[in-house]
């Protein structure tokens, strides 16, 4: 077994203490390691990439568990509170009338007898001055949380009802870690839902453009000749378009004017689908070039010739023999592509053409925040920071993968 040393590293002196290795240890060392294991081991040595990978996993977990977090934190990402806009981080604000009334209405529906009891109690103790007894609970909900809780104490009802009422009163105030945005929504939850959208779009675009690029590159590389020329010209043509202006034009298109598209896409997810479609259209070119290059070199190798001689179909050759060799650099491209897609989505949403509000995405949160950067700077800084972190993480992971896969740096 030989060690491949780097020029600038000192040679490791032989260990005098150990004489020879036991049979087991030798067998262990000589066992062939699978490619994935090698890559994984290499990857772990690149510290920054590992940090990046952990960051991404953290964000993914947070994004996936968004509804759970909503329950735990007690705030809603869609709940607009128009009287408390642009609140600073770590502020507690009183909830809007609609939240309170919805909570009370749900309670009345689920426990009509208990509710009636509470109503008569409230009127008896003269905590509220309602004209109709049905309004008593609603009027009680208009109080501040403290007052409402105090009222509960003096009611002559059993403990279960009291704790129910306390639960409702808790909803009268909301605590916001990052404050509220321009419509009074909680910034933290919006950022979390935005993670779903932004990262989701990024990953989806990277994967689909990888697929498209793989397909086109493979066909062009394998068949060569006229098909290759044609496909490469198309790739070049699309590459030569100035990205952002064309993205703007395509994003601004009114899909209503294309009759067949109208029936497929519903207006709800329309902006997201449109964005993914547009970004895919412009991201597959570098990948197809990469794949084509690989396949061109692979095509001349003997094992391909052997497969052909054995009568394998083109499809089998491409998928079973060539693809596994292409996967490695493809993976690197995909991870780097995710970062790029996130940035593009942010840029388009910043111009007002990407994901349309109220669906939150980091880009359109920046767009909404740009007017008041001096009064509410955290609204503008936070999404930008998140974009920065996630994109750096993806880039580091891609870099780490690149180092891990590169055969010249593999050490056995």
């Amino acid at each position, binding site marked *: 077994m030989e060690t491949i040393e780097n020029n600038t590293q000192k040679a490791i002196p032989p260990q005098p203490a150990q004489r020879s290795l036991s049979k087991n240890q030798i067998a262990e060392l000589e066992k062939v390691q699978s490619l994935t294991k090698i890559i994984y081991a290499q990857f772990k040595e690149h510290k920054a990439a590992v940090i990046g990978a952990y960051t991404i996993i953290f964000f993914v977990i947070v994004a996936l568990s968004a509804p759970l977090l909503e329950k735990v934190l007690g705030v809603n990402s869609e709940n607009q509170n128009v009287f408390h806009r642009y609140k600073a981080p770590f502020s507690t604000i009183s909830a809007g009338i609609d939240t309170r009334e919805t909570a009370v*209405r749900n309670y009345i529906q689920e426990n009509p007898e208990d509710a009636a009891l509470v109503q008569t109690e409230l009127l008896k103790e003269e905590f509220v001055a309602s004209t109709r007894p049905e309004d008593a609970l609603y009027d009680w909900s208009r109080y501040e949380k403290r007052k409402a809780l105090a009222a509960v104490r003096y009611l002559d009802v059993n403990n279960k009802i009291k704790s129910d009422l306390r639960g409702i009163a808790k909803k009268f105030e909301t605590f916001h870690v990052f404050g509220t945005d321009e419509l009074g929504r909680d910034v933290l939850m919006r950022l979390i839902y935005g993670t779903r959208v932004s990262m989701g779009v990024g990953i989806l675009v990277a994967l689909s453009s990888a697929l498209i690029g793989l397909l086109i590159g493979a066909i062009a590389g394998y068949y060569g000749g006229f098909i290759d020329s044609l496909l490469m010209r198309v790739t070049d043509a699309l590459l030569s378009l100035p990205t952002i202006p064309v993205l703007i034009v395509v994003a601004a298109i009114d899909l209503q004017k294309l009759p067949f598209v109208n029936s497929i896409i519903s207006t709800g997810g329309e902006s997201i689908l449109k964005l993914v479609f547009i970004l895919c259209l412009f991201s597959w070119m570098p990948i197809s070039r990469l794949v084509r290059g690989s396949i061109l070199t692979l095509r001349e190798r003997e094992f391909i010739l052997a497969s052909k001689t054995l009568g394998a179909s083109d499809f089998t050759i491409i998928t079973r023999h060539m693809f596994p060799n292409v996967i490695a650099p493809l993976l690197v491209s995909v991870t780097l592509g995710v970062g790029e897609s996130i940035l593009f989505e942010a840029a388009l949403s910043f111009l007002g053409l990407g994901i349309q509000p109220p669906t939150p995405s980091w880009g359109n949160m920046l767009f909404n925040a740009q007017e008041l*950067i*001096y009064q509410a700077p955290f609204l503008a800084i936070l999404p930008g920071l998140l974009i920065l972190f996630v994109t750096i993480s993806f880039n580091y992971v891609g870099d780490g993968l690149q180092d891990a896969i590169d055969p010249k740096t593999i050490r056995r």
Partner: protein
Amino acid sequence: MKNINILLVAVLLLSFSACTKKNKNPEPAPVPVAAATPEPPKLNNSEIKIGMIQEFETFNPLIANMAATSLMSKLVMRYLVTIDADGKWIPQLAKSIPSLESGSAKLVTVAGVKKIEAVWEILDNAVWGDGKPIICDDFAFAIKVASAATVSIAEKEVYTQVEKVTVDPLNPKKCTFLYDKAKWDFYQLGTFAPLPKHLEEKIFNMHGAETAGYEKNSLYVKEPYNVGLYNGPYLIQEIQLGDHVTFVQNPKWFGEPAKIKKIIFKLIPNTGTLEANLRSGTIDMISSMGFELDQALAFEKKVKAEVLPYTVLFQPSTTYEHIDLNLDNHALKDIKVRKALNYSINREELVNSLFEGKQAPAIHNITPKDAWYTDDPAKVTIYKYSPRDAERLLDEAGWKRGPDGIRTKAGKKLSFTLMTTAGNKTRELVQVYLQNGWKQIGIEVNSKNEPARVFFGETTKKRAFDSMALFAWVSSPESSPKSTFLSTNIPNAKNGYSGQNQMGWINKEVDKLCLALDLEFTHEKRIQIVHNILKYYTDEVPVLPLYYRSVMSVIPNQLKGFRLTGHQFPETNEVEKWNLE
């Protein structure tokens, strides 16, 4: 390494000096030479820099139609008459406004058609920037150009409404205008501009025959610094499209002398950086085309907190923010439902909490400073916020509350879709507020927003909205509402979607009143007619009034004589009164 770096730095320097070249402009007035030191901390009358957010174009008064150009053109171009900051029509180039009472205008009948004739006389000392007097022929020439089919003028009717101009042989500044129709607002020629015949006529004769030939070769495009093209208190010293325009005093200006020597309008297309530019001193004030309401409110707070040397001005305008109801919607056909919707909008709370009271609640489409305005409950129906009345009306109409709180009738939910322009924060706020308010009385309202170009270009134009459309009408004082009220103005495929009666309101009485309004020459009688129209409007509720928008501007504390107007003739109409000392 050192060699390459030195080489690169040298290349950088060379490319800089080679690429930049001085701007050449033929200026008649002396230009102050730039000092290398930064501007003085205190402002004085030598210069002021104003920021604005919208793009502008060349200054040909017939061709230009961008709002920003209109804002700036008042510095260099004055018209026969205009509306002042108090909302009154005053003469600018004319000596006085002709009227039937004074005898300077009279009704005539030509070939069986009722028309009106008015005598206009231009001020004796009114001259163009090169000293040539402004004469009636200049107006006649403008009409000739505007009527040509090869000129892409936007508002043709303003010019073609004057059929004939007869110049007094003794006085080239006095002439008689013969209008094509008899209408009471014949004197409202606020956008009727003269063209300098002595300069533009040969261009028009040479190029007028080809499509867009005149506007491409007009001196306003080819020689924008020619002083003879302008007649206002300022002249254009430098114009750079997409960036800025520099104005200097017009030595031949015949009105009140302007105090500020140089005015620069700078285009800053991004609202976020607009404020940054103000605070860093790149601009000294922000025009009425600058801040959004939220920004202005927040900036006002900052001014108070940090004692900055600025004043934030708010002025109610003639912009009417409202919700058009689609009267063909099955639920909205019932007048009780419409009234219930109107009763359940708490306008006071809306403007107080969202706008801090800076925009006033609306009761109908006429704004408070308009002479036609009335809030007399005897004349129009006022809807004070009363959820009780709203609920009662809905109950009477047969809509009962369902288990989820939303009212239903015959299995259908009382549910509407409120549409407006996307990306407009203020409107989104209003949407949410209204949604919550209506939910409390059991009406479900969903929002659906579209980009402005789609919303105005397709949805409202073709009445493709399901139930509610939220947007604003811009108008001027005392303007006829017939484009939005006449039943013949309901846009449909047959009439090519022209007309702005997007509610689909058909009321024969209102039709008659609108047509009668045009022909009513007595001010008081007109007010009567308008009040009658408003009675129908507020009774039948085809539209839900929301509030009247305000215009905003930020001026340095030193600036005196500045007044926002709130209508289509902006604050630059009085620019000669602005004073920084």
